[in-house]
């Protein structure tokens, strides 16, 4: 399909100074550290790879079951199992770099200080081309409420990370809030270079035959096509609230889905659970966007970003 794309179609985008050859990334936590899917697809074709969430110390994660399928979606309660920032730099980064694709490190912390410390180590070890700050994590110092559900906590994290690094800082918002635009504006004010949205919706399921929560952790994050209408709506609202570049995600399984986000205001997109259903999903999305641009006379991705706001 890609070979038939008009030569004038330029898929490249620039997100907060990171140059991507196309606007399609793979979302944090759904693509491990890049090598896991190498046997199933051409990883080097991706616009960028976002790593699994990294913490300062290794994390063992939540007790199983961690996965539960739901209609057109899935719940996960991985609980940030990861080898820690140092093991990442030593063991995973070299293989990840070999794909010659921009690497965005997704980071998470229990405290503001932890976020800043991870950001510092990432910069001084050239551990990423940009940092995606996951503010869906519980703020341990404030009773476990997610940093991202309160503008002040969000600002504290973003300011600390910005001070700690000169890498571009992308803030990844949680959708579990009353007013996403308010959080987005707070992050913009605190110096964020771009925003990713959305993280998973908080959900749960009951195993009615065992009469207990299906997940070992009770609650889990809902992802997949089921959540796309909520995610597109939030990209639309945030587009109207801030001027930052947005990375849209939540249920992308086809190029049509990706274009919904782009037309709603996302400069790039990420494929998450869609890769589980089809390892070639991101590749199909890249090719499909190119084809759509050729068919509709768009020369650059930026010409499509937010276009649906104008056509109202």
């Amino acid at each position, binding site marked *: 399909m890609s070979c038939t794309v008009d030569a004038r179609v330029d898929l490249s985008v620039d997100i907060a100074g990171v140059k991507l050859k196309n606007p399609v990334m793979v979302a944090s*936590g*759904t*693509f*491990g550290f890049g090598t*896991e*899917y190498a*046997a*199933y*697809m051409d990883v080097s074709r991706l616009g960028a790879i976002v790593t*699994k969430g990294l913490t300062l110390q290794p994390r*063992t*994660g939540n*007790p*199983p*079951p*961690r*996965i*539960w*399928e739901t*209609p*057109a*979606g*899935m719940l*996960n309660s*991985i609980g940030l*199992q990861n080898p820690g920032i140092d093991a990442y730099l030593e063991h995973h980064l070299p293989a990840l770099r070999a794909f010659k694709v921009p690497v965005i490190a997704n980071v998470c912390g229990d405290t503001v200080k932890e976020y800043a410390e991870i950001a510092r180590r990432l910069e001084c070890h050239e551990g990423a081309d940009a940092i995606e700050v996951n503010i869906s994590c519980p703020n341990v110092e404030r009773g476990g409420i997610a940093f991202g559900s309160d503008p002040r906590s969000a600002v504290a994290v973003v300011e600390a990370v910005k001070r700690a690094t000169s890498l571009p800082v992308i803030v990844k918002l949680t959708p579990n809030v009353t007013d996403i635009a308010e959080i987005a504006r707070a992050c913009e004010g605190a110096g964020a270079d771009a925003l990713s949205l959305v993280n998973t919706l908080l959900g749960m399921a009951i195993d009615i035959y065992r009469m207990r929560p299906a997940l070992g952790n009770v609650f889990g994050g809902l992802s*997949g*096509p*089921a959540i796309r209408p909520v995610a597109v709506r939030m990209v639309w609202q945030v587009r109207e609230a801030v001027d930052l570049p947005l990375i849209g995600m939540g249920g992308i*399984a086809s190029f049509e889905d990706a274009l919904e986000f782009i037309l709603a205001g996302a400069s790039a997109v990420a494929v998450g*659970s869609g*890769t*589980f*259903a*089809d*390892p*070639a999903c991101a590749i199909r999305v890249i090719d499909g966007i190119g084809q759509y641009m050729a068919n509709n006379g768009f020369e650059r991705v930026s010409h499509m970003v937010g276009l649906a706001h104008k056509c109202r």
Partner: protein
Amino acid sequence: MHLEAQILEMHAITNDVYSMTLQCPGVADSAQPGQFVHVAVAQPGSTDPLLRRPLSICDADRSKGTVELVFRIVGRGTRLLAGRQASERIDLMGPIGTGFRRPRPGRVPLVVAGGIGIAPLHFLCRALLSVGVSPYVIAGFSTRSDMILVDRLVRYGAKVQVITEDGSFGLAGKVTEYIERAAQEINSHSHGEVELYACGPLGMINSVREWCLETGVFGQVSLESRMACGTGACLGCVLRVITASGEERYERVCVDGPVFDVRRIVTC
């Protein structure tokens, strides 16, 4: 490998167990006993069910380039699969996972199968027989009408003892009640030391594990877990294991397993 394979043959073995034979030389060539394929079940254009379903490779024929899956209908994914027909194409990833280690020279494989758990063990037995190793199989089913794959194993030359819970065929009871006896029989006849291979429901796996730990027999079990990626990326399918150094951690059933040394299992 990720590919679309053509369904060559599709038939019901019992009421709720189906056999699906696929044309996929790439998978057939490299498949190892204990490995599985990760199969898309939704209709094209539908995003529900979203996730693939893991199914063990029950047989692989390199010369024909075919792979056989044998699965039981337990929910909507397997029901959709059972509705597929010969000549249709099916999207699969595989072969995936760390399969069974062959027994050490001179050891006698004791194969313990519970219900549909016989599927990966069927492939294992064929592979063992093809290199001259004769497994001793004890295969348990609820009742005679659930019995599957036994005839084929016998035909290839495996020694098979069937156990049904209701005694409607073979010995009566649970397969785990007969492990000790089987091991003694092997010892008395062949004087070889036993190595155990098992796949089946959780209760059976737990009994097998205890027996192995008590007797010191080296045992490998194939485990199940709900899976998303099937590649090791999502960390969704983990099992708590105990490492050689005594420390506990989570390992992925999809790529670190699905076959585990019983001594490494903490809970399952």
